[in-house]
């Protein structure tokens, strides 16, 4: 049984400026059935060198644990401004996080990558559980994660 956590159109004015050429992108992140508490997720964008560009979403409300989302923490330096308004509940084992974002066209097919860092209390942290280029070609193709993410898909 799958349940969907749906987060709608949060317009990211700070970084992804909502220009006329922005595209609505839906991200589906389905977790494996690991045994553990709700997972913390950081979905963020880097350039082709892995340099952090901006936060798309943080699942998990307790900022005390954010340091375990290691790649994101390093890139964002965990500054509140980076994730303010972009947080939601942690995701329980086996469930799917679905959220939709407006992303500027310039980030698509331009070498940028989507990363998903995951962490679960008392279990391992997964830096770049998922790492996938943001391209028109890759849209709709599920990618398996190497940690708690069973499959990750984005659709325009």
């Amino acid at each position, binding site marked *: 049984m799958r349940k969907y956590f749906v987060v709608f159109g949060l317009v990211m004015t700070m970084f992804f400026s909502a220009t006329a050429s922005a595209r609505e992108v839906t991200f589906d992140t389905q977790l494996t059935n690991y*045994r*553990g*508490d709700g997972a913390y997720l950081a979905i963020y964008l880097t350039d082709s060198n*892995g340099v952090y560009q901006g936060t798309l979403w943080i699942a998990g409300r*307790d900022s*005390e644990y954010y*340091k375990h989302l*290691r*790649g994101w*923490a*390093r890139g964002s*330096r965990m500054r509140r401004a980076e994730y303010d308004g972009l947080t939601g509940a942690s995701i329980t084992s086996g469930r799917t996080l679905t959220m939709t974002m407006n992303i500027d066209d310039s980030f698509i097919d331009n070498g940028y990558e989507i990363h998903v860092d995951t962490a679960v209390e*008392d*279990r*391992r*942290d*997964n*830096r*770049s559980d998922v790492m996938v280029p943001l391209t028109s070609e890759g849209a709709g193709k599920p990618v398996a994660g*190497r*940690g708690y993410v069973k499959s990750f898909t984005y659709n325009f």
Partner: protein
Amino acid sequence: MWRKLHFYPGLLAAPFLILLAITGVILAVSPALERSSAVVPSDGMISVAQLAQSVVERYPSAEQIKRTPSGAVIVYYTRDGKPGADLVNPETGETIGPYEPSALFRWVKDLHRSFLLDEAGRVLAGVLAAIMVLMCISGAFMLARRAGGWLLLLRGFKGSGDSRVHSELARFALIGLLLSALTGSYMSATRFGLLPEPADNEPPFPMEVSDGEPLPVGSMEALRSTDVNNLRELVFPYPGDPRDVFSLSTRQGAGFIDQATGQFVEYKSASTGNQVVEWIVRLHTGEGLWWLGLLLGLAALTVPVLSITGIRVWWSRRASGDVQDNASPADADTVILIGSEGNSTRGFAGDLHAQLSRAGRCVHSADMNALAEEYPRASLLFVLTSTYGDGAAPASASRFMEKLALFRCSTNLKFAVLGFGDRQFPRFCQFAKDVDVALASHGLARLQSPAFVDQKSPEQFSQWGSRLAEVTGLNIRLSHNPAPPALLDLELVDRADFGVEVEAPTSILRFRPDAGTKRWINRVGNKRDPLVDFHAGDLIGVCPPGDDKPRYYSLASSSDDGLLEICVRRLPGGKCSGFLHGLQPGERIQGFIQPNPEFRPAPGSHPVILIGAGAGIGPLAGFIRKNDARHPMYLYWGGRDPHSDYLYRPELGSYLRDQRLTGLRTAFSRTRESAYVQDKLNEDAQNVRKMIEMGAQVLVCGGSGMAAEVRAVINNILKPLKTDIESLKQEGRYLEDVY
């Protein structure tokens, strides 16, 4: 005030607190379990560099090494694209086995901190922790009050039952429970921002690294200088990212290490605030302090018992008539002071309180320890107290004597002391006697001399009430019966009637006791049923129809005789004796047993002198029947006419023949001799004296007139021995069952 603060929140929170405690107990075992399986090298033996080096040799894709507070070392790695976690030996880096956090402990932990309800549950758990702090503090004050002072808490408590269990457990668990509750409250309060939390201690991620060729991990200076026992966590750089760094977190601080130089690029020592918080967490979880964890678990284990006994104590207090409508000490015209070890005296005091209030008095009830310095409007002072052990004050009166020294008797205050005790104990009601003397020498006037209630006897209490009503002119009728006794079904199987011709109609009634199904169950369990376990000399309480005040009759048989036998004289207009005399075989009544172990022949081979008159022979005949050991036993008994009211005549004959009865002297008042039992004692004075000198025990049963005559005669007999009945009584050698 403490009591209310203790009970009501406790009652509401009890189910949750029990759940918190039980889950806490399970979690408390976890650090000890982990510790028992962990390999902990001695300090200075292994550095983090050595560990990391041996780990990367076995796990080239190691991502993270974590050391739990218990000393277990976990390596997180990826192999063939699959994430894994292994426990490794910190001394060798060898794999111990795959690491999988226990699903049970995780579930229990979630239950413990959030009742599996996420945020709402966490709030609830935090509130409960705060309630627990309140329970501990209010409980501590109540304990100290009960013990008579904080230092006396160390000595423990007297008493018995739920209240004792509750206090003793609480005394031992208090520190542990308070520690768990305080640390738990703190953790919750910081989580919800109610208390400030020290800032996170991680240094900022370094902006610049040297970007050179990475050093082998085993030769990095920052890792070589860190002992493995101080390690928390070492995170390896992301593979193939030369600009990434090692993140090291230790007990002392946290920092980032340059891959190329092996030196810290950023480091921050743990702040005092962080260390304090860390200790608070450790004190709560027992992480790394396995022995503390076990102690806290032990303390938590008491919570279910404390909850249940606490509720039961409260309930019994309520059931025994907790004082309602208590006037203030300043307003009261009547004051009742209670000295109680358990709570049974309170029940009697509650009845007195209610009756006096009903009679229009303005009554203040309090523990004896709460004696005020003055009762400005009081004219009557009642002290109802038990005695603890060998004449000591009971718990709620432990400081009475010192408080009395400060007491100002400004009004014309009259007092009466009622002692509660058990005549089986040598210094029966000694504390009550001491209080009586102390009050008198403090200048208070006696309303009446001290009276005593043996074994919570409702009858003696109501008798005291009647005397009180006479002395004060107040319309009160005391009728407190502490524990409503279990009723026995009794079927009359036969009766023998005597004395009708001499205006002393007396019947020996034999009943078959039947405790119904309960007895059947006990028979299956091969246990004796306490309901139908009785001895000659015990009492049976019977209420006549339409009357709820029981009358008591001495039993003439024991339960192993099979039948319950009583000897009842019908009194003119006697409601209950008339009712019993009207019974025909096959009819049923209900009654309850009131044990009277004090009135029984002492074990041993000393002679026993039984003295009775009329129906008073009942228990005495029962004692003789039980004299299978053939100890010397003499009976002096008085009746009216041998042809009419010679009770137990055939039985006594057979007892004499089989030597269960050594000697029998009877006296009849309506014969030509016109003798009474005391006359026969007088005739036998020398024998009686000799037997008492030999250590004989005297048991008297009958009307109070007869008992007084017998006392006079015996005291005369005792004179040459330079002793008297009072001293015999203190030795338990002169017992009376008088009505």
